[in-house]
């Protein structure tokens, strides 16, 4: 709204022209981040109280002896805080004429609703198993991914520059227009997008098992993709870093900044010992939006570095759980998801989370280093 307002006032000229500063991407990004941060900090307490009253928490009366030592009873579904703050902030600071913003916001809403449905089903059923079935979740994720892929692929609706629609960026390799090489997927681009959406959203969902782990670990890839969106959306910088210029993608910087602000605000309450969990509402929404950021910036392969922690957690889970526990009838790791293996080895939860953050930071820096290393 502020973007539209200042745009209008600025067009009147005269005394209003300094308002131009409010329309710079950098200004709006920081403003959006601060807005989500403040909104989350302000609204967290009443929201948490309400979640508690609404019964959005897991409790087991039969196991009350464990209560003093466990975190059971912590309200879940805190993702609504993140999503709410994001939407408010983006309404204020976003440029809603921009297609990129619509795309990524759609993921926030669709995946948020999917996660919320799952959380509500779990609370109603009373156990972790009574949520939506794996198949139902996967189906909706895949459908969304295919739809997004189709929109990005079709010539009438694609936001990408011509000849660059079905290309995916390769780290350390220059694009063709700078004398390098483009990897064209042609029709396979659509299922590839669906794959990225499903994989990344589930990856975040899976890592959400310790206090502050998902929010903190996802924060850094979000920041990395914000920086990349900034570079891609700036003609000079794109030229300097040898990226194809994608006009309009700078709007994703505002989104990424808002998300980062919301995550930091959420960590305030989600840090050990957590007052609130994000639930599937938060983790699926976070994963879904991160996936769309990745797809829109065309840096899917870079996520193997920037999201290395996610890759690690997921690969070990697939091997350890699907192959090991379900097929072979034995453990291949001490526990999966792998963060619980460290707990099994006697590392406290707080320390595991901190170490995962450090590794995530390290990988984020590595990912940023690839910007120029080509």
């Amino acid at each position, binding site marked *: 709204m502020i973007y539209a307002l200042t745009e209008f006032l600025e067009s009147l000229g005269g005394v209003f022209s300094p308002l131009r500063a409010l329309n710079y991407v950098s200004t709006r990004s920081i403003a959006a981040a601060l807005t989500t941060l403040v909104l989350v900090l302000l609204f967290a307490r009443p929201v948490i109280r309400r979640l508690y009253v609404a019964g959005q928490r897991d409790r087991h*009366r039969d196991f*009350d*002896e464990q*209560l*003093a*030592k466990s*975190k059971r*009873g912590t309200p879940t579904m805190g993702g609504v805080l993140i999503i709410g703050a994001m939407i408010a902030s983006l309404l204020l600071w976003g440029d809603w004429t921009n297609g990129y913003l619509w795309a990524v916001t759609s993921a926030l809403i669709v995946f948020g609703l999917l996660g919320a449905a799952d959380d509500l089903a779990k609370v109603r059923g009373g156990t972790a198993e009574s949520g939506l079935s794996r198949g139902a979740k996967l189906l909706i994720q895949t459908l969304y991914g295919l739809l997004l892929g189709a929109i990005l692929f079709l010539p009438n609706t694609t936001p990408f520059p011509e000849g660059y629609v079905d290309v995916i960026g390769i780290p350390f390799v220059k694009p063709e227009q700078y004398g390098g090489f483009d990897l064209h997927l042609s029709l396979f681009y659509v299922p590839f997008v669906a794959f990225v959406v499903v994989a990344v959203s589930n990856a975040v969902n899976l890592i959400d098992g310790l206090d502050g782990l998902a929010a903190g670990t996802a924060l850094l890839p979000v920041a990395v993709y914000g920086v990349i969106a900034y570079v891609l959306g700036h003609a000079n910088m794109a030229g300097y870093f040898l990226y194809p210029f994608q006009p309009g993608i700078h709007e994703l910087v505002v989104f990424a900044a808002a998300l980062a602000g919301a995550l930091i605000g959420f960590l305030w309450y989600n840090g050990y*010992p957590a007052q609130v969990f994000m639930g599937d509402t938060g983790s699926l929404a976070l994963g879904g939006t991160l996936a769309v950021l990745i797809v829109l910036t065309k840096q899917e392969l870079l996520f193997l570095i920037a999201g290395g922690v996610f890759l690690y957690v997921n690969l070990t889970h697939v091997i350890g759980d699907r*192959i*090991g*526990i379900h*097929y*072979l*009838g*034995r*453990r*291949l790791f*001490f526990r999966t998801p792998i963060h619980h293996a460290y707990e*099994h*080895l*006697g*590392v*406290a939860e707080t*320390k595991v989370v901190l170490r995962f953050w450090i590794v995530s930071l390290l990988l984020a820096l590595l990912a940023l280093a690839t910007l120029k290393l080509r």
Partner: protein
Amino acid sequence: MRVLLTGGGSGGHVSPLLAIAEALREHDPDLRTLYLGVRSGLERELVPRAGIRLRTVPATGMPATPVSPAMLRFALTLLAGIIVALVHLITFRPRVIVASGGYASSPAVFASAALSVITFGVWRIPVYLHEQNAVPGRMNVAASRIARQVGVVHPSTLLRIPSGEAEVVGYPVRAGFTVAARADARDRLEIPGDVLYLVVTGGSQGARTINRALVDGLPRLAERDRLAIIHATGTARTTDYDAVRDTHDRLAELTRRPERYQVVDYLHEMPLHLAAADLAVMRAGAGSLFEVCTLGVPALVIPKANLPGDSQVANARQLAAKGAVEILYEQPALFGGKLLEAVSGDELAERISVLLNDEPRRRALAERARDVFDRRAAERIAKRVVGLGKRIRVIDADDTTAGNGEIVPVEELPASPAELRRHVERVIGLCYEDAFAHGPVRDHELLHLDDLDYLRYRGAALLAHSQWSMRNEGVKLIALTRHREKLELILHVISDRTPTSRWQRLLGGDFLHVGFERRNAVTALALLGVVNEDVLAAISAALTDPYYEVRAAALRLVRALIAQGRKIAGVAMIAGRVRALTGDRNIEVRWEALHTFGLVGPAEEILELNRRYALADRTPLREAVLRSYHALLDRHANGRGQPWRDQLLHDLDRFAITSLAFHPHFPLKDQYTALQRRIDHEQEPA
């Protein structure tokens, strides 16, 4: 009215449909029917004889393994079946589909759903589903979601039907099913009045369990006078088992058998023989049970174990609860290193003898059996089907208590083994993982378990299951019900070294009895509470098992046994093994071994070993060292006057006490819990 009948694969699914068709024809003389079945099923014989047109569709049963070539074949067959059934639906244009379950009925039922979707709900053919088994199969559960109305035989089945309108309607019986009077039947078979007639059959295919048990039991039965036995072996001929050949080979080895013993491959006039019988021994398929019940024959049933949903056992238990049959469970036993379900000949002969001697009991069984199936079931179903055809709902007020009015409620135990095990855990108040701390299951804990015999049977039967996850639940059930007679099987699971499939070995599997099974079998020993030479041999095998959790569990078991004050023969040998495991490649085994060595090792060696781990990086290793010191002090009265006491103090001085692990403690939750307990148990807080 046009009605499509579908179902089959076995006789139990076909004859109810024919009964329904017969009842429908009375309502509507212009009834036109088409039967969709499978090529290989019994419907090929029965349906044309009843004057109904038969068409076949491709269909197979759903395999138990979720990801397998068999599952792919199943999915493709189902797809093909749905397409064929769709063609039949479009050409025959039925008003109603009546399905009786069995895999043969799935294509038509799913095709009706597909037709509704394709035509956007314009062309909807209502489905009436009749479920005869106490526990419906997975395909029938899926079909019940599509069906407009569902009728069941057993009241408890209603709990397992997820949606749709379900009610108890009974088992439809053909009006033309004439019961040969007992005297007539005996005359025709030329059985003298004072001779007891025993019919033994495992169905048309035959049952290995029944055939072998009967042959083994013949010498004992030969001790009786005035007993005639007819034994139908069945015609099964698979790579594992050839019913006729196997039976005759075994008969040839017998030195003694009853005079009036006759063995045949197949009994063509089964109803006649059953009508003449004083006792029948048979399987517990829905069809066979229906036969003995409608004829009112006292029956001893041996339900086939480990079918999907354990359906035969569930059927048999339903009838046994009503006093209509007696059950003899099969139990797995080791045959040449392989686990097979079996009944011992002695046991079968004993049960037969007891029943033959007890005429009042047999008469009671026959009377209760005759009451089980309500003859009006076919009429009741026909009314509903006609209602569906006219698109109206039939409610008959006088008919709400279908079945017999008097139904003995069966305490419903969960059908799935995992849920059954959780049920037992809840009742005993013991989580399987806590077995070591708990020690042997105590008598008073078992008192709370209703139907302990069945639970024990189920656990043992599961051990012969083809899926490891089922065998794993079997191991747990045996342990939780303290089924000590099956100790031999538990030990077999631990020490059997039959390799698993090549695929599994390629991915890191080792033996047929997978890691979890072996680990839980070791844990089972703590609950069974038997220590003898065989158990010690198994423990020592477990200590060198290739899978780390088995080694770790064995170490914990050694500690648990010592803590219970068990005398362990050959403790020096075990101490040597434990000592070796302190250098294991797996860190969890290492810390369990360090701890255990404190209970079994010599003091000097313990101190020497522990010193090496005083600065270990991993917290659990150092924790194990401290626990082992505790164990050492326990053994030597706190070390008073021991030569190594000063050395221990010296070592502890150099021990790293930084810990990466901690347990949170929330004072607020303390207060909350204390308050809750105080209210729940009216207890003063400690």
